[in-house]
């Protein structure tokens, strides 16, 4: 072997060995790409308590939009909850592939009106989203919520895998859990539940509606449902809760399906106290909130007051 060739080959071999060794050294015990999503943590959207306003208002009016305006005005008008330039997320109940009349999903009319009000109050962007049970496209389509919200100027966002962030909910039961980011990366959160019967919790109204911000295997939460609802409600504090009691699903909840199970009530509630809202709305189902597990537990956890008349209650029937 000639000297030149010897040098050439040993140099090349050494270089390759150095690359291999260097790469091994570099990658050893280290993940060279980063899967960690950035953490976000805002989840308390509550407004400052204000004694001038009641914590719960209720209006009955066959014109549902008028009922919403009236109840909202009584609790301080939209300007109290949405400031110009803010980003608002509305969380209706769009859980099931049902029509609005079947009363398994929030009234599209109310959602549309709420979007319009937020935009009029100067919101920079209004997002309407929900983690549905049935396939999301069908739910948003059949419930009419997609159309109503988009017509009013909102952005309807269906949940996709990339949009979940794992957050520490800091609950007794709920700790690390995937949350749809649109419910935490925003300035204002408006919860818009509908009143329905539910076999395990007796009723599903505001606090139970918050299940819809979670991804993951939420069907396991039923094993300790009262505690998990309370954990969730202590974590996610909406700016405003607007309860749709225009139609109430008396039986066959939370999915319904038969119009025979629906009571027409023409009522809208606005609340800054979710426990009070749930307590009042449970009456539509003939329930005494003091006997409903998760509402009682929520009051014990200091989330609000079952005796809604004591916290300022104004009704207009």
């Amino acid at each position, binding site marked *: 072997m000639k000297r030149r060739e010897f040098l050439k080959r040993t140099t090349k071999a050494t270089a390759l060995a150095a690359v291999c060794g260097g790469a091994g050294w570099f990658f050893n015990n280290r993940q060279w*790409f*980063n*899967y960690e999503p950035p953490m976000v943590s805002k989840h308390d959207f509550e407004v400052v308590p204000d004694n001038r306003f009641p914590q719960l208002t209720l209006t009955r009016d066959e014109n549902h939009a008028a009922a919403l305006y009236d109840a909202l005005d009584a609790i301080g008008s939209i300007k109290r909850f949405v400031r110009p330039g803010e980003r608002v997320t509305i969380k209706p109940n769009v859980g*099931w*592939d*049902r029509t609005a009349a079947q009363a398994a999903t929030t009234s599209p009319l109310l959602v549309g009106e709420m979007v319009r009000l937020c935009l009029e109050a100067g919101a920079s962007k209004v997002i309407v989203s929900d983690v549905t*049970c*049935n*396939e999301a*496209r*069908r739910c948003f*389509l*059949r419930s*009419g919520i*997609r*159309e109503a919200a988009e017509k009013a100027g909102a952005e309807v966002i269906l949940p996709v895998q990339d949009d979940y962030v794992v957050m520490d909910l800091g609950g007794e039961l709920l700790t690390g859990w995937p949350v749809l980011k649109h419910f935490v990366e925003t300035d204002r959160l408006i919860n818009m539940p509908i009143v329905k019967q*539910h*076999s*395990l919790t007796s009723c599903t109204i505001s606090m139970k509606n918050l299940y819809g911000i979670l991804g993951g*295997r939420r*069907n*396991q939460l*039923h*094993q*300790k*449902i009262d505690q998990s609802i309370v954990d969730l409600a202590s974590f996610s504090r909406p700016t405003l809760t607007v309860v749709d009691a225009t139609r109430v699903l008396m*039986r*066959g909840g*939370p*999915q*319904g*399906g*038969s119009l*025979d*199970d629906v009571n027409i009530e023409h009522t809208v509630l606005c609340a800054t106290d979710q426990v009070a809202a749930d307590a009042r709305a449970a009456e539509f189902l003939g329930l005494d909130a003091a006997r409903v597990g998760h509402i009682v537990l929520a009051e014990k956890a200091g989330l609000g007051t079952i005796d809604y008349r004591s916290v300022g209650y104004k009704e207009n029937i």
Partner: protein
Amino acid sequence: MTIQTVRNLRRFSQVLFFVVFCWLILKTNFDIDIDPTTVSEITLPYPVSIALQFDPLVALATLLANGTLFKGLLWSLVILIPTIFMGRFFCGWVCPLGSLNHWLSEIRSERLSFRGKGKIESNRYKKYQRIKYYIFLFVIAAALFGTLQTGLLDPLPLLARSIGTVVLPATHAAADGALGWVKSFGIQPVSSAAQSVYDFVAPTLLNFRRVHFHGILTIALLFGSILVLNRVFTRFWCRGLCPLGAMLGIFSRYAIFGLQKDEKSCDHCNLCLLSCQGADNPDIGAKWRQPECHLCLNCQAVCPQGSLKFKFFPTLEGTVTNPPPIQKVDISKRKTIASLAGGAALFPLLRSGDSFEVAANERLIRPPGSVAEDDFLARCIRCGQCMRVCPNNALHPTLLESGVEGIWTPILIPRIGYCEPSCTLCGQVCPTGAILELTMTEKVGDKETPPNRIGTAFFDRGRCLPWAMATPCIVCEEWCPTSPKSIYLKEEVVLDREGNEVRVQRPYIDPNICTGCGACEFACPVVDRPAVYVTSVGESRSPDNQLLLRRKDPSRPPREIPNER
């Protein structure tokens, strides 16, 4: 019009039909842009299965197997009748799988260069090309006896199935994977560029959600083999195996259009053989074979002497050195009889197995609106359109769940996706009536009409949380979509390990109401083997596979209703 123009027209036609075929499959999808105020039922805006209704083999085989020509299949005459006069124009001009094979064959290969003896020899007529006729006769004889196996190899269902259940889902997985990989570098401009490319491609190419299919590897294997074989022989599939090509070859027996060769001007350059697609011997000195020719017109286009000409009423006489063309297919009588006999024997052989009558798989849950199993197996062409369109990814190609006979027919796997009560899309896209189109009332039922049932749910009490583990749950009841709910609860006080009293609601099934949609099985929190599961018993399509003597359905008048079909 020069022959070059006509050839370019043919190329354009191939691209056009290929694109249309793929577009129809892409559109076989639950489209979001539907106005809910004007349509109560979700219907597809396009007749997405129309391409399959143009397939003469589908028409003939289903006609033989179940005795009727299902609506829309009359379109196949648009292909068949011109073929009788012109020959296999479909293979060269229309067939999307043929075009795919054409393009893949034309990529330069190591084995057969574009020029040279090897390519010329491989493009002469070969005996293996008879195999397709035997396959055709075999499946046709089988169809006559009632088992429809044409769909396994019929190019249009095969391509629809392969694209719908293999290519598109794999593309989706690849796109998601690539996007995640690029984003993982964490370089912001690169990530957002990748995201915008993804967002641009997604609405056209990707399904609105990632889907997963049962046993698609077998489908992929067949499809991949067909594509790869093009690298061994030009259009091996079209020449040697395709039963539709064989059928069209047989029907071109009396074609009045064909190749006329002028022996005098030919200087035997063999350019015609180099570019021949069908291996039908376009060169002078060999017998031109009408049933093998795809009418691609390459031979005429490349002939420098102008010796070859496609025309109406070509001369059927030959000379000593230039034999006349052959219009008959090249099959032996004995093998014809053997193929037919084999096909005829297939039916009793399959039905003597246990999977059809005596030990049907209890998990063989067919799509809603499916006809009874024997009729189903005489109709389903395994095109996979129902699986593609199902918004819940509930329908899957079977492997052996319905026996070897029913491979790749649709099965509903509730664990992956349940049957949406308000959805009738699978019946809308079925081209052969194996799944009948249901109205919304027929699907969910009303006061007079019974709902369509696909099975019945059962509890596995050893795995159910309230039944076996003193733990509240009731997710199944929450998800049950019938009204009143088929799953009802009874509250009981049970003791846990420490002897503490626990109040649980234990679920029961009312088989009078259950439609077998599988929402309960889908939602059950016992992840690996659910504590509630659906089996096919009680399905509307079968009078025998029933559980109850009489159904008492509280959602309908109090009289007892006989088991509805």
